[in-house]
């Protein structure tokens, strides 16, 4: 941090954030709603823009897709990297006269390099790609939990590419771990997409650590997605995790950050099929506790009729199942806790930079 005339200056921080989660947990939708989330944020200083054309195009196209077309973005077929700048404000300590220390709010530019990989990359047991069938069509590669389109069939991830993904994740400064509780209830395979990746990250970062006994240095924002799903929402409501913000004119429900971890643990415990409860244990074991934070998120948020002043308990589902089985977004997008994990990651990384600099 640069001091000028004794006052802290604006900061820049470069953070590589890796997106991590099972297929269909909503990684691409999460990113796609980011621009909308920033636009709706009460923090007027918050803004986001792309560093390159591809990144800007992603924001533009997916914002339109979500709002105008009311469609979900296509599932990620191949790995992509987006570079955005998230401009926000952060609190920094300020030394005043007579050794008084206060905090000052300074602008912060967080450069985000986001890696979005297909969910199947994170599967515990990498799958060898099947031989391509005649005519280019693919058979079932066993990725039955992969919600990628049928066009994916036959497109197995080469072993070498998976290793690259793991290398990149391990080298990230922050991780955005997306966890879909509904998928866990249905398939019980969340842990399958977690523990293998975690161990590979650990292998890459912890071997040869200068100080034995340390933990992974990453900041991890754990996002339980699809809070707008009636099953997730009702669990939060019935178990007392739901609250409302007085600053929200639409009174959309949310789970406060301080309760998010507890809610997350409850959500995973309710899965009778998998071992998702091990995810929380592993997070505490492998990462510094103060570097892991939980959020309960929804990329598209709850439905609110334009004729209603606020959230209506009787009718809040913001997706509509179409005749062909696909889902369409019903109303306006009101993302919940989409930008907040990135803000936390950015501020945490910036604070970490200051510490290192000092």
């Amino acid at each position, binding site marked *: 941090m640069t001091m000028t005339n004794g006052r802290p200056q604006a900061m820049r921080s470069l953070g590589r954030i890796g997106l991590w989660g099972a297929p269909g947990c909503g990684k691409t939708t999460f990113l796609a709603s980011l621009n909308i989330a920033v636009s709706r944020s009460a923090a007027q200083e918050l803004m986001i823009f792309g560093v390159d054309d591809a990144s800007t195009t992603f924001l533009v196209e997916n914002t339109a897709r979500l709002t105008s077309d009311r469609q979900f973005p296509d599932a990620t077929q191949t790995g992509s990297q987006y570079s955005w700048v998230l401009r926000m404000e952060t609190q920094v300590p300020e030394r005043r006269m007579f050794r008084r220390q206060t905090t000052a709010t300074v602008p912060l530019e967080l450069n985000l390099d986001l890696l979005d990989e297909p969910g199947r990359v994170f599967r515990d047991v990498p799958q060898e790609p099947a031989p391509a069938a005649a005519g280019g069509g693919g058979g079932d590669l066993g990725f039955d939990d992969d919600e990628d389109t049928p066009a994916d069939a036959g497109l197995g991830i080469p072993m070498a590419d998976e290793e690259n993904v793991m290398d990149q994740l391990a080298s990230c400064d922050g991780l955005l771990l997306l966890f879909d509780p509904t998928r866990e209830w249905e398939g019980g395979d969340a842990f399958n997409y977690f523990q293998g990746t975690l161990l590979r990250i650990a292998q890459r970062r912890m071997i040869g650590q200068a100080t034995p006994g340390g933990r992974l240095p990453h900041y991890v924002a754990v996002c339980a997605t699809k809070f707008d799903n009636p099953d997730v929402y009702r669990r939060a409501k019935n178990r007392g995790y739901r609250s409302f913000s007085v600053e929200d004119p639409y009174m959309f429900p949310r789970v406060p950050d301080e309760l998010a971890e507890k809610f997350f643990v409850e959500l995973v415990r309710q899965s009778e099929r998998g071992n998702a409860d091990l995810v929380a244990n592993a997070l505490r074991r492998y990462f510094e506790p103060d570097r892991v934070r939980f959020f309960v998120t929804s990329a598209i948020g709850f439905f609110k009729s334009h004729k209603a002043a606020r959230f209506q308990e009787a*009718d809040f589902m913001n997706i509509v199942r179409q005749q062909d089985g696909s889902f369409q977004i019903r109303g306006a997008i009101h993302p919940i806790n989409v930008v907040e994990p990135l803000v936390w990651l950015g501020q945490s990384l910036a604070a970490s930079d200051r510490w290192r600099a000092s």
Partner: protein
Amino acid sequence: MSPADSRPGPCPVCGHPAGRTQACAECGWTLRTALRPGPVTARLRADFDQRLSAARRRFDARAAALVSADPGRLAPWIRGGTPDIAEWAAAVRDAAGVAGGAVGEGPAYTTLTTALRGLADGAEIVIVEIGPEGIGVTRAAVDRRGTPLLRSDQPAAPWTVLLPMLSACDDERLFQLAGGIAGLDRDLLSRYLANVVPSGAVPAGTAGETMVICQPAGWRILEDAARHVAEGIAGATLVRVAGRPGERSGMTGSLRARMPLLRGYGVVVATIAPATGAVTLGTRPLFKPGDVQGAESVLTLRRAPGDRDATTLAVAVDGGAPPPSGQAVIDGAGLDVVSLHEMPLPGEPVYRVRAVLDAPGRVRFTEPRGVTPLARPWSEVIAAIPRRVDVRPGPVDLVCALELGGDREQVNRRRDLVRDLLERLAGEYQQPDWLRAGLLGCTDHVFAPGEEKRKVVRRQPLGDPADALLALANFRGDGIRYADAAPLEDLLHEARRMLASSRAEGRSARLLLVAGRRAHPRVLGLDKVQPCPFGCDWQQLVRGLAESGVSVVTVADTMPGRAARNGFWADVGRAGLHALPDTSAREVGADLGVSLRPGQRIGVPLSA
């Protein structure tokens, strides 16, 4: 000279014993005058003979005129030759006068039927008919239906047996009976007449009443016989009837046919209680007491909607005892059926029958054609009448609501069912305003910005079924926009509005719902089905319809699974739930209560 020879001779005109009077006590012929001097000249004798002949002719002509209007028929027995025109006219006048005080057959039948009507149960009246053929005795009673029961313990006694001195020749005997008795021994005649009762030809005493009928009144021997019989039976009533009997067998012979009904007859009809469908039997008056042979009656009757089989026309005594309380259907004991007929039901729901009274206990239906006697007993007819039926009488408001979302063929199948039902009912409810039909159709809610509040229900108000049929052609299908539910709750909401006033107007309210998907809920539930954008609550609407007395039948494209049958479909279709491929307009109509259910045939007409 014997004592008999010393008795005065009979009157030369009428044959009455002359006695010592100046003139005949019976005919007034001068029997004695004062002695006159001088011989009886030829001229005097001729004059006497002429006057005697004329008096005899007059006496005999009057009897002949009583028997026949033809002066020549009995001329051989008219003493003094054939009467001339003036004499015959005078004889006819005299004949009319001798029956003075007699009653006509009509009043006589009235007297007789009045006496019969007043009989206690089991009592009888003895009718002694004294007529040209002889004396007949008939015991008459009436059964509980008022039908006369007649029996004769002995054949009628002919005059040739009762009065052997009468001629064996029919015409001469009639002449004698009517009053041509100048040649008869009066004393002998009187002794025989006085012996009619003692001889047993007529019962001397009965436990009940005795009525002596003398017909034709004015016939000398008949009158004398009737008087002797009436005087010889205690308490007997003498009825003198003018004119010859219409039937050879006398009044009693035609009594059965000519007797007026003592009790009215009615056609047995069924009444269906609007609220419960309970069937009760009653009668519609067909003939009233006093109706006589030949009386005609026309009744307008109705058949139950959908009933096309033959029906039973049961004629029963009208105004019988009411059914025992608590019995929905009168059993055979309560209705006294006189005759049974089978009638093919006409195509029209309301039809006319015409009946003719042939005699007490005999009714013949002349309209419509094809009415035949029913061979089965009334007890079998009664046993087949259901105690309650689902079809309800009275005017009906019917709303047919159908889901228009789906592929064209499926929507067409739903419309076909509605069309079949309306066409069927239009033929059954032909009275104006008896059936009002309305239509509702829904397309899908669209869950997209700016479209959620779009009205999705198309409406054809209650009115003539023909209008509904025409409008149905325009209720075309639309694509499905939301797979998991259809705006059936909107249909229920509109249907409730359309049928809101039916009950107050005295009309049955019915709703048919034909759909493939369930309704949208009011709030988002665990099944994640999108709630109705208008906030319609199908459960509340179903309750409201039930409280308003609206009967609802649902037809689903396919029979829902067990869970669904216990949920939405069962809740809505409380009067019936069918699968579209397996049902018919007839079945649906039966469940709606607008058409007779197979197996619930009443078998007798309904009161129009």
